[in-house]
Each structure stands twice: as C-alpha cells, then as structure tokens.
C-alpha cells in the first residue's frame, strides 16, 4: 500500500469518527477492527496484529 493510500484511510477513519458521538468511538473502532479482521481472511495474521497493537499502550516495564 502506498503512503498516500494509508493517509487516505487514516483521514476517512478520522472523518467518520467526527460524525459519531464521542461515546461511540470505541464501539465504532472495535466494530471496524472486527470487520477488517474478517475481511483479511487470515486468522494467524489477524491474531498477530491484535497482539502488535497492544504494544506501547502499557506503562514501560509492565509485563508484555
């Protein structure tokens, strides 16, 4: 995927969030992640991405 394509997706997601109430942002993003994971149709890869995205969200030094 080109950088421009990635940027387009990034912007589309940001703009869609802007049309939703803030309280629904987590719900929307979880729904989006689930739909994209199914569309990917590659369970091991989806599981790897699920683990990857956890990185950096825990305090430094916390068990991974």
């Amino acid at each position, binding site marked *: 995927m080109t950088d421009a394509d990635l940027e387009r997706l990034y912007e589309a997601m940001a703009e869609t969030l802007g049309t939703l109430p803030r309280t629904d942002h987590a719900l929307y993003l979880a729904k989006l992640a689930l739909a994209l994971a199914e569309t990917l149709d590659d369970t091991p890869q989806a599981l790897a991405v699920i683990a*990857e995205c956890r990185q950096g969200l825990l305090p430094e030094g916390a068990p991974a």
Partner: protein
Amino acid sequence: MRPAGRGELDSLYFTYPHFPAPVRTPGPETRRPVVIAGAGPVGMTAALTLAQYGIRSLLLDRKDTFNDGSRAICISRSSYYILERLGALQPFLDKALGWTRGRSFYRGRQILEFDMPDSADEKFRPMYNLQQQYIEAFLWQAVTANPLIETRWQSEVTGISEEPQGVTLTVSDPGGSYALPAQWVLAADGARSAIRQMRGLRLQGENYEGRYVIADVQMAHDYPTIRRALFDPVSRPGGTVLIHRQPDNIWRIDYQLRDDESAEEATREENVRAAVAAVLAEIGQDSPWQLEWWSVYSANTLALEDYRDGRVIFVGDSAHIVPIFGVRGLNNGLADAQNIGWKLAFVLTGQAGEALIDSYTPERRGATLDVFANAGKSTRFMTPPDAGWRLMRDAALSLALTRSSAGRLANPRQMTPYTYAASPATASDDPAFSDGPIPGALMPDVALETGFLSDRMGPGFTLLRFGAGAAACDDPALTLVDLPADGPVGRAYGARPGTAYLIRPDLHIAGRWHQADATTLCQTLNRLLARTEETTA
C-alpha cells in the same frame, strides 16, 4: 516579551544596535528606481538581490534596530542557496546549527526518528537553526558593505500615491515628513503591512485553531541539534511541544495552548515559567535555566489575492501569513525577495520586458498556496481539531512503534521547494525526457570532483550543455556550462549528448531540451523574459 525588569531589547546574548535617524539633504528627493519599505530579513534580501544586478535601492524602516526576539529560527537549504548567491552566507555557516534529524515522542516514549533527505550531493544540510536577530544582523552586514543600497532607519511610510511614472511615498522621520518618488515600491513591511492597508487590500484565508507559546531559554543542555516533537507529553497532557536547539545555548520550546487557556493568561511570566519548567523536567534538564524571550503564535493561512498592485509589489509577511510548523514564514519570504529581485532588475536593466513581473504572483503565491494545502494536514496532526482526529493521530503515533508506515503519517511535511510548473517564466517540458528534474523545479545540486554544480552557475541565466557541440545562444544574460553527458550531472539530469537545461537566476529550471537547437533556445529565453523588440538584445 521578556521577564520583568528587562526591556524588550534586553537579551541575554545579543546586543541590539541603535540606528540613528537619517541625515537628509534639504530639497526634493529624486525618483528612485526601487524603494523598499521594511528592512526586515525580506526587505534586506530584496535590496541585496537588486544590488547583485547593479540596481540601486533605498531601504526604509520605521524602527531604530532589528526585530526583537528570535522569532523565525529555521533556515532551509533553499534559503542557503539564496544567501550564498548574495555573497552573504559565510557568517550563517559559521554561526548556525545544521540539522537533519527529528525525533517524535508519544506520552514520553520515543516512537519515531526520521532524517530529512541529505546526501553527499547536497552542498547544505536540509535545515539550519539561527535566531532571527542574527539572520537580520548578518544580512545587515552585507547591506552596509554594499554601495548600491542606502538605508534610512526611523523612517516610516505614512502615505502612498500612484502616478504614471511610478509611486510617491510619504515618509516620516524625526526630521519631518517628505515625499519620496519611486519607479517601483517593494512593500516588505511585515504582517501588519501599512502599505497593504493604505492600498485597501486584505489578506484572504483562514485562521486555524491552535495557538502556540514560543519561549526561548538559555541553559547548558546536553542534546544534539535534533528537532524533538513531544505528543501528549506528561508535562502538557493532550498538547504538543516542539524543542529546537539554537546557538549560544538557547533552546526554543514551543507549546500548544489548550482551548480553555487564554493567550493573555498563558503569556504571563509566571505561567510561561511554570509551563517551561514542566517541559524541561520531562526532558531531564535539572540544571538551572534562564528565560530569555517569549511570544504567542497562531496557525493562520492568509495571503493576498495578487502580490502585485500596479507598481507596488508585496514581499514576505506583507503578502502572506503561514502556519509555524512548516517553517515557511521566513524561508518563503526570502524566496519572494529573490524572485522579485532578479525579475525587477532584469526589467530595469532592459534585459526583460515588464510583463516578466507578472510571473511573480503565480510563482510565489503558488508556493504559499502549496504551504496552505499541506498546512491543513500538518495542523490536523500537530493540533487535532476534534476527538476523532485526535484518536487517529494518537493511534498513528502508537502504531509507529511497530510500523514505519504509520511513522510516515507522523512525519512533518517535507519542506521541498515549490515547483513553478505553471508559470509564464517557465517553458513546458520536453516529452522526450524519461527522468531528470522538470521545468520549474529547483535545480538538484550534484557533487563534482571539486565543489558542486551550483558553484558553476552564472549571475543571470545558465545553460547546462551536455556533450560536445551542444547548441547555445549568444545572449549577454547567459552563462554556458559544458558537462559530459555520461558524468554525474548528466546522469542526475537524464541527459544524452545534445541535451540542454536552461537555469534561471534563482536556480529554478526554466526549460530543458533532450536534443537542443539554438533557435528554440534563443526564442524560449526571449519569450520567458517577455522581451519585446526594444528589449531584445
């Protein structure tokens, strides 16, 4: 602003000069070819460019010293070429801090390191940090050494009228008011341009949300010249902080204000001190620091519809106000000054027709609009406008820990010089080329056995001819440079024997021909310079 007890010009490291009022000989003033209103960095650069081509100018400034405070601190590579061509570069090279690298941090953790494009073919680094008062002082050194430039400080333009032969300014100085006629006036009188108002012109565009306090502190701080961007830092949750190193142990801390913080409150000394102390604690600065200067800055995208109004031409901040993140304010102003400088000089010396001046607005306003197009994106990244943009921005930053692709979303927009592709002073491209730089682009530099390609450029136009026996054109404005088609320049320029590139005085490519012939070359040069029968040499 400065700490209590210190005056506006009371700097910890810089001594502001005091310029006396001019001593004028009584009687009417003669009509000057060019009067420049405003001796800021842009006005001085315009005067130096004109002088390079033998054109006299008179610089006016209402102040009696340089601008207060360090303001614009990032000078781009392209500006270094401008300064070099003016013969003013050496003190900049000696003093400024060159840099290529940026680091981004998200919630205190480094998530990204990026390098701006640089290579052995580049004569200058992508960026140099130097306080604006040094920029002005070094330009001033060159101005005072130049016999073609007269400067009058403490001289304010208070009126303007136009007549068929030009423009007459009303100038007020401590000795009184007088009329000053000119053929052309360059309005380099800054963001609040009085001339713009007197001409009834308005800047158009948008004021973005997102205000920054810019504060300079002096301290011994051990960190290389790397631009640091702190997103959502512990010291300012939800905000963005930028940190830049400058010469003389001065560090620039830019921090974003929250929507609920008033600029007035935020710029009170104790609040600036507290905010700066929190940021410094976060970056591990535990030795003492001194507050030097601070100010507040917002992200506007405003420009004049037309930079030319008859015989009055707007350059620099009088013509455009751009957001701080792209570091374009000063750099674009210097490019404006060089652009109008050579064009006006060519017209005044009869080497070009007056219509050449009309290429100034499309080229330089085009460069500003290009900044605006990117400004939306970088502003959304630096200061997200709503919760959705913030969430996505934070997601990209966090994902950058594991994916370089996401890091590129966080990369500040590259400060690539604007390409003047659609300009009357640029020829259309020759479709026979499959690579090499296109007409309108700033010429790429190439390292030669000794020195660089740019060292070989003439003062006016330059024709790069590849291979033996390539066509030329007998024109006093033209310098010929012969190069092998199979050498490093030939390769970078997609050349073969017979190829020619025509380079403008501002080092932008005017045109290129895969197989050049003399007639086309000469005709193109005449057309780009808007020469009529009287001006054709």
